[in-house]
């Protein structure tokens, strides 16, 4: 092999690898470095060791934000998983109308977070919102979704579920398509009922997809940001402030870059561990040979 052959490959690979190293890996390493500094947004740096991390664990707002984040994830992930699985089961057929419904349920996913929150703000808001108007029509009081501390988190959750149905539904549909048709034919020959077929063929076959959906959604929802920032700005009194919004506020409201980055690193490790944990948990229960 000539040197040209041996190193020619770099000509194809290096443009990406250098962009990737500069735009993703370098910032990632910088992040670890900055998190050990007292640093502001304008370049001032002072090495303080692990102080930022120590401070985080004494920060009541950090705990509140963590609580809100997990609350949101707990509301969104199971609901989204179940709803999209049911939708996939109902829409997994080759009819024209099923295709239209699939398109409809997926359509919200292509909208940006700003449009989605704009739409839902004027569904939820008590003075001009759609829900308030419907309630008024039947003589009920409007519900302060966006200002009552007990309602803001569910409001963000509902908006997120409406926005995020598309991808998990498509994943479940893809999972259903992979179930061999002859298994259903065999079950029909065995006179299995609709429920038995579902319980013993469909559901076990969707196991892997379910794990993927839960993992993806957990990772995504723990990093929820735009919906909260735009719908409620984290309020009232921080009751709907998820952790990424808190990170944003520390960095761009208080300019405490080092502290914000430390919080981001904690979240990163948390998401990584949770994802790996879910993966491990799912595989531990996997029966051998599958």
């Amino acid at each position, binding site marked *: *092999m000539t040197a040209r052959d041996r190193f*020619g*490959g770099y*000509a*194809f*690979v290096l443009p*990406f*690898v250098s*962009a*990737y190293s*500069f*735009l*993703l*890996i*370098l*910032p*990632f390493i910088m*992040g670890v470095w900055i998190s050990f500094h007292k640093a502001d*947004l304008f*370049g001032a740096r002072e090495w303080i060791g692990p102080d930022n991390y120590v401070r985080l664990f004494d920060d009541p707002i950090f705990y509140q934000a963590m609580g809100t984040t997990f609350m949101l994830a707990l509301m969104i992930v199971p609901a989204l998983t179940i709803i999209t699985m*049911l939708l996939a*089961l*109902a829409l*997994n*057929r*080759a009819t024209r109308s099923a295709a239209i*419904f699939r398109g*409809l*349920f*997926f*359509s919200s996913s292509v*909208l*940006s*977070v*700003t*449009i989605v*929150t*704009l739409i*839902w*703000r*004027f*569904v939820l808001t008590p*003075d*001009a919102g*759609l829900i308030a*108007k419907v309630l008024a029509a039947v003589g009920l009081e409007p519900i302060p979704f966006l200002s009552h501390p007990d309602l803001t988190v569910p409001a963000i959750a509902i908006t997120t579920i*409406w926005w995020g149905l598309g991808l998990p539904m*498509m994943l479940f549909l893809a999972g259903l*398509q992979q*179930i061999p048709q002859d298994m259903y034919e065999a079950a029909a020959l065995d006179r299995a009922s609709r429920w038995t077929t579902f319980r013993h063929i469909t559901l076990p076959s969707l196991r892997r997809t379910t794990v*993927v959906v839960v993992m993806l959604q957990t990772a995504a929802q723990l990093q929820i*940001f*735009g919906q909260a920032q735009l719908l409620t700005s984290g309020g009232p009194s921080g009751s709907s402030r998820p952790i*990424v919004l808190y990170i944003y506020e520390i960095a761009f409201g208080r300019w405490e870059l080092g502290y*914000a*980055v430390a919080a*981001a690193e904690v*979240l*990163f490790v948390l998401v*990584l561990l949770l994802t790996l944990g879910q993966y491990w948990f799912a595989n531990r229960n996997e029966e051998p040979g599958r």
Partner: protein
Amino acid sequence: MTAATGRNRLPWPALVGVLIGAAIMVAPLLWTLLLSLKSNTELMRDSASALSAPYTLDNYRDIVTGSDLPRWLLNSLIVSLGTTGGVLLLCSLAGYGFARLEFPFRRTLFVFVLLGLAIPEQAVILPRHQLFAMLGWHNSYPGLMLPGLAAPFGVFFMTQYFRAIPKDLDEAAMLDGASRLSIFWKVLLPLSFPAQATLGVFTFLGSWNDYWWPLISATTSDKYTLTVGLASAQMNYAQTSGLGFLMAQAVFASIPILIVYIIFQKQIVGAMAGAATR
């Protein structure tokens, strides 16, 4: 969806469920559309007036003639197309390199790229903001496009796709006297068009809908993308020009992406499903 699975007739409780779900999907969209077609003064009195005539296109006329929205739309288009073009170029080259060429540390480099799949945006966005600030890249088109180029998934996707193309074709082209570059350019690249379309649409959507990076990188209204522009309009809603106008902006901003969605529905759905099941 190719094969018909499940039984063809939907049991009625499921049908009712699907219809209710569909209503919940449609109602907010319809409400938004209706609000956008009403005059602001009428809505000020009572937003329920959106359910009855008269309707008007005044809000849309105001958007086209007297707002920043067209500018933001153009910015979004420039940034998204630029990012998509860059990603397709870099990922195709790298995918071909990883799939087909032998060079020292190829496997190591590939693993290095895959590591990026585990790094979420929020773990790098603040240091990257610092980096771009040091280099003076903020509030510019390149500054908005560049972060999207670090797309390890794209490389993974293209590598897998190139690997699935029979090696016979490369060899046939070698015997036909084609150079490395011309094998890539004339044989493999045309064959990878389906993958390019999928990755392209995927990247375009991601870039078009990206919120956080343009929020912190674009600092003046003339560099705002649609997402950031609409966010600012939303934040300033109380002081400005009314509900109908605001909702018309939402509709106006949704139209391009919905058109893209309708045209590329197959690629979008395929990309999303394919992306996550691997």
